[in-house]
């Protein structure tokens, strides 16, 4: 979050333009078609997996309580940094968890990714509250709702005048953990799909065994998963424009726009990642 102010917060949600929707559908269909042409059914499955992963990341980012610069001064609730940074942290932690668990099978790897991302956000959110409450001496109070939807705690009597609330209420903590888990799940899904594609193609292309080529396949899949994670997280951040408190924030209702954008961006970036090896040795 920059201290420079963002686009004006308008009431309600502006729906995507008709051109945007049509373009989105065309691009996704084109990506699926191209994937079938390049790598047949395995490519289509991989692109669908990457799109689902991207959508999970963009959706997960909306849960994470982002406070930005005002939160650093205790003037708005949330964690005192930008959306892209928090999402990158949670996503990479999830990706490490998932990549470590990859040899244990698809489901275990996905669970490992979700646990990794959720754990990082749980630790971050807890320590944020420790610093807010015991270090800065400010109680947790939301500015957007009067009552915590989970615990039923009331906020107005604890909220300082002139602020949008402060600290990290329980609902925001839960949102952070859910967001981290979804992000880690999505990042791991992208990683696993790309790893499958590279492990199938690279040994044939370079005439080697799967074990010999493993470092290249893992590294390529990992760096592309990070890249797509960041593209989706930034698009979701643009959708939020600045700060969000968590799932109870009115801005949360904007998420369908980010899901469309993330699906298209993932499909386009994914088709280049899948088609990567098609041109090796052609020129």
């Amino acid at each position, binding site marked *: 979050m920059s201290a420079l102010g963002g686009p004006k917060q308008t009431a309600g949600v502006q729906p995507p333009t008709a051109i945007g929707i049509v373009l989105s559908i065309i691009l996704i269909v084109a990506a699926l078609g191209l994937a079938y042409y390049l790598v047949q059914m395995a490519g289509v499955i991989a692109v669908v997996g990457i799109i689902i992963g991207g959508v999970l990341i963009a959706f997960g980012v909306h849960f994470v309580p982002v406070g930005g610069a005002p939160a650093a001064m205790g003037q708005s609730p949330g964690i005192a940094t930008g959306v892209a940074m928090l999402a990158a942290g949670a996503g990479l932690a999830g990706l490490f968890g998932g990549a470590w668990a990859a040899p244990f099978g698809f489901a275990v790897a996905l669970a490992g990714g979700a646990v990794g991302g959720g754990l990082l956000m749980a630790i971050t959110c807890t320590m944020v509250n420790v610093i807010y409450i015991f270090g800065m001496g400010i109680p947790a109070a939301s500015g957007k709702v009067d009552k915590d939807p989970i615990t039923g705690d009331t906020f107005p009597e604890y909220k300082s005048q002139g602020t949008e609330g402060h600290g990290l209420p329980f609902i925001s903590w839960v949102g952070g953990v859910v967001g981290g888990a979804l992000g880690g799940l999505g990042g791991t899904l992208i990683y696993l799909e790309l790893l499958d594609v590279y492990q199938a193609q690279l040994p044939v292309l370079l005439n080697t065994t799967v074990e010999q080529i493993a*470092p290249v396949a893992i590294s390529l899949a*990992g760096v592309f998963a990070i*890249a797509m994670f960041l593209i989706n997280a930034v698009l979701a951040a643009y959708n939020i424009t*600045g700060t969000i408190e968590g799932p109870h924030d009115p801005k949360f209702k904007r998420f369908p726009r980010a899901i469309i954008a993330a699906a298209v961006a993932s499909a386009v970036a994914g088709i280049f990642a899948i088609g990567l090896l098609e*041109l090796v040795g052609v020129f």
Partner: protein
Amino acid sequence: MSVKIEVGAGGIPHNQILIYGLVGSLVLIYLTYLNTYFQTEYFAFFGGLAAVVALLWGTDTIKHLCSYGLGTGVPSAGMIALGSGVVAALFGATTGPFAPIVTIIIAAIIGAVAGLMANAVVRMDIPVMVVSLIELAIVGAMTVLGLAAMACGTFEFLGMITGTVTFLGFTMLTYETSVIGGGIIAVIFMLGAIAIQHPFNACLGPGEQQDRTLMLAAECGFLSMIPVAIISFAFIGAYAALIALVISIIGWLYTYQQYIELSKRDAYAWLDAQPIMEPEEGGA
């Protein structure tokens, strides 16, 4: 919808920087191809210089884009730039001698899609969004390709995934000791991302001056070149890597000194604080 915030006026027009940046980085990255032509490794450092030129252009683009107020901070623009860029750079690298040109085209496609999504679906409605994200994706891609070429001496994919190890006098071909197989590409990704997101983030504000911001961008670029030059000792000859290291250190020292000069010029006052001296004897 968008609030235009203050950045320094004057300086070189953005379109001029765009042309210099695009042509400059393309030419410099092709100079690393002299390695393949002459069968040497001494031209690897041109890749790093291509990254520096691209970063200068990218910083001016970020300044142009972020003057509309994104609401998410300057670093997010750097993150999406490198995110789109690394996909394009590695895809482009598979096309052999055409790598830099293909990279630019692919980066432009990914950047255009991200920009259209940001404007038409997420409804940022920022006039320069699509163009800026296209430029940023190209900048990110050229940075990754340039630094990767600097690390291993070539911008071709097969050169990036294969390396050699000498064991008991035998030279073996392996995939572990390579830029991609060794995970160096992730380091390059982060070095590029930090270099692109820092300069404008550090210099923005009412007193922002273009020459100072761009000097910081060059400084960050050379700073990122230093670790890549050290990494390149593992992949290219010691003398070639040493040349790259010396050039990065000289470039960094010069740009850092210039940046301090410009900061002193733009500062209201400058105090060269001395350490507090102990009284010679007795004391107060």
